[in-house]
């Protein structure tokens, strides 16, 4: 179940990161940097929020 949550979150983050990188990039390098940054922030931010909810909900 946790795996389903994580995979869905990851898929969502990948799609959004690639979308914004495609929208804003000027060159190939810029594209991957933008996608990597967005993906990293989305995944880490979501995990941080999930753990915060888990710890405060106990």
């Amino acid at each position, binding site marked *: *179940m946790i795996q*389903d949550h994580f995979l*869905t979150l990851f898929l*969502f983050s990948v*799609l*959004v990161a*690639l*979308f914004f990188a*495609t*929208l804003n990039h000027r060159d190939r390098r810029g594209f991957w940097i933008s996608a990597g940054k967005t993906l990293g922030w989305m995944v880490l931010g979501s995990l941080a929020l999930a753990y915060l909810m888990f710890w405060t909900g106990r």
Partner: protein
Amino acid sequence: MTESFPRWKAYGVSLLTLLVPGLSHWFIGRRARAGAFFALVSGTFLAGVLLHGGLFPFSSMNWLFRLGSVAEMGMGAPYVLGRALGWGRLDLLDTADMMFGYGNTFLVTAGLMNMLLIMDAFDIAVGRKE
């Protein structure tokens, strides 16, 4: 740089994305980006449908669902087609489904992405963006 369109034509061209995601960019000459946008926005929409998200009607009693329907309408033709085919029809049992919330998020995001594409295509068409 793309030759800029007259303003009235730019409005028409940018709204083509409501028929097929990325069609405006294709028409403007950004073929590679158009393909990527088509794959990404359609993929997000399809994932939302497969995850049992709801395609909300504007007449929903719940104001949050009504707000969601405005965002989802940004998809244009796929939203209308999906509603006509009965995809994402709200069922009380679906709301208890673990993936219902995720499906909604995907569908709402796909609509909002498509709205951004309309604005981006307009900016390119009038020469405001390269």
